[in-house]
């Protein structure tokens, strides 16, 4: 019979048994986490600190480093190219991401239909984002070439011929070059947005559409009220990643235009690279890098705040 009364009441109980797993239990979590954290710390924090050091001191071989404070930062911030680079990068980002979102949603909707061979089509559409941006850069450079590029041939034989226009020199004219870069980025990454949007579409329970049809809601109404809300989160995620990646953009710009003509399409990363490795103004390049990091952090925080705010809002209205 079980008792609920006095605790175990014999003479002093045998001392507590020692666990042979005791040591493993102590080591195990530490082995899991410490090596990676140390590795990542060494590989990222040190270089960043070193970069900070380079930006705050004048380092010349054979001479001891000289403290120059924020002089490099001043040079970068006062140089027109920096602000121009911010401008062109932001323009690029905003235009490209917007187009990617619009087209991405459209493509996701198109590819969501149940037609034969859709699996293959989806695969083909998703290919561009898996390829090295550098390779793509070279490719589009070939296609955008003013003389033998296929794009100009298409233009000339259709609209251009009709309107008697000169063949556009994509990679030479500053505005056209910027457009070219946007086209390449949109081409490569719209599938990414489409992929995320498609995933979002898959989470919509079909019962919602059925109920809406019974209630005689129009297709447009269904889109606005059912489809769009489910797309908000994946699209915000897509916008976050695409914005950050476009601000960081390097490979395709470097190959398409090299930042040119002059520095007209020098996005932040490209300009930074040039300052550091073409002009060898190392201190400035380091300062520049830090400014880029700060900028990206700000953008990330802002977008993340937007995401959490939209999540919270939806929780209240859902």
């Amino acid at each position, binding site marked *: 019979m079980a008792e609920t009364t006095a605790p175990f009441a014999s003479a002093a109980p045998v001392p507590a048994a020692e666990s042979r*797993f005791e040591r493993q*239990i102590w080591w*195990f*979590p530490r082995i*899991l*986490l410490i*090596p*990676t*954290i140390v*590795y*990542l710390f060494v*590989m*990222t924090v*040190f*270089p960043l600190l*070193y*970069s900070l050091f*380079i930006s705050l001191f004048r380092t010349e071989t054979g001479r001891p480093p000289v403290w120059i404070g924020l002089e490099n930062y001043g040079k970068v911030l006062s140089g027109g190219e920096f602000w121009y680079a911010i401008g062109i990068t932001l323009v690029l980002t905003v235009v490209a991401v917007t187009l990617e979102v619009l087209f991405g949603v459209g493509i996701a909707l*198109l*590819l969501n*239909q149940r*037609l034969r061979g*859709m699996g293959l*089509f989806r*695969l083909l*559409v998703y*290919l561009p984002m*898996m*390829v*090295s*941006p*550098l*390779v793509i850069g*070279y490719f589009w450079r*070939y*296609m955008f070439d003013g*003389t*033998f590029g296929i794009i100009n*041939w298409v233009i000339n034989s259709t609209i251009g011929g009709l309107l008697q226009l000169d063949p556009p020199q994509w990679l030479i004219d500053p505005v056209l070059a910027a457009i070219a870069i946007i086209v390449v980025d949109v081409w490569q990454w719209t599938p990414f947005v489409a992929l*995320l949007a498609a*995933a979002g579409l898959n989470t919509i329970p*079909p019962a919602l559409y059925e109920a809406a049809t019974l209630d005689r809601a129009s297709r447009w109404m269904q889109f606005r009220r059912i489809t769009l809300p489910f797309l908000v989160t994946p699209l915000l*995620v897509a916008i*976050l990643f695409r914005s*950050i990646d476009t*601000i*960081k953009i*390097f*490979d395709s710009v470097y190959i398409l235009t090299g930042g040119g003509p002059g520095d007209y399409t020098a996005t932040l*990363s490209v300009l*930074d*690279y040039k300052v*550091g490795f073409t002009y060898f103004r*190392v201190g400035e*390049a*380091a300062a520049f*890098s830090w400014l*880029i990091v700060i900028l*990206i952090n700000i953008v990330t925080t802002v977008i993340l705040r937007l*995401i959490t705010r939209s999540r919270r809002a939806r929780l209240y209205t859902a």
Partner: protein
Amino acid sequence: MSTKPKGLGRTILQYIPVLLIVALFFFPLFWMFSTSFKQRVDWYAVPPRILSFTPTLQNYDQLLSIAIVPLQVLIDPATGQPKINKLTNEPQLQRPSQVLPSDEYRELTRFNLFGQWYLVGTKSEFLRFIFNSIVISLATTVFSIIMACLTAYGFSRFPPRRSDNILFWILSLRMLPPVAVIVPYFFMFQAFGMLDKHLTLILVYSVFNISFGVWLLKGFFDEISPELEEAAMMDGYGPWAVFRKVALPLVVPGIATVAVFNIIQSTNEFLLAFVLTQNVATTGPVALTKFLPPTGIDWGGISAAATLLVAPVVVFTILVRNQLIRGMSFGQLR
């Protein structure tokens, strides 16, 4: 979704926009593929010749030709004995130029099999770059996956205090612009004499690969019901055995996804490889920048090289098409 049987016209109408989109996204890749078979003349042809050109394999030949020939020991005609190298005390071997099929070939490396030396020659360094890419991506992937598995499990089952912050920091490394680190990395690795070495790129790529792996795998580990691990504990297994025998086998799909993405990201990376390597350890994408003979950009060569670089990626994409969503959106943002 309507279930009425559709008319043929309606079906065609539905296919048209889809086909247009697919063509739009697929065309540049196709164009690159077809250009790789063109002769120099056709690269610059206006109007561009989409199908009406004479195909050639010379571009691929240029890139891929490889010759493996045995190197014979040089015999002194006077004595009939092998000539000995005074410095190394070893028999002298034939010079590469004596054995390679043509003077388009240059030595890539040599190796010794069962006492017989062989010379490997190629027409271009491209194969070496491919080899580098393969070695580096595999090495970084293996290393990163091991680290990521351990770490992701650690964060999933043994979150330390302030684990949210540490985790966020690790995951934010993905956002780090390579530009921010190329300057310090360049000087650091230069100081250690590690520029143009494979290990350098392996170490650098692993930072991003581990970050990606931790993010993805933690989600997988989180989904394993803790009761499974508790059952294993009750069955008498210590924490390490529980990890090995219960948790790991259940995240194998996640590991496969991470592996594929790591390999793809490592083979596609450009800037860091460009800055941190010269010739010895250079990888695929950087190789493309070397196609600049004085006679103008070798578009045929670039297309062929590009096709070769893209092909494995296409294969991999087919393999992971089901995991694309998970990998690309890194699971759910919290």
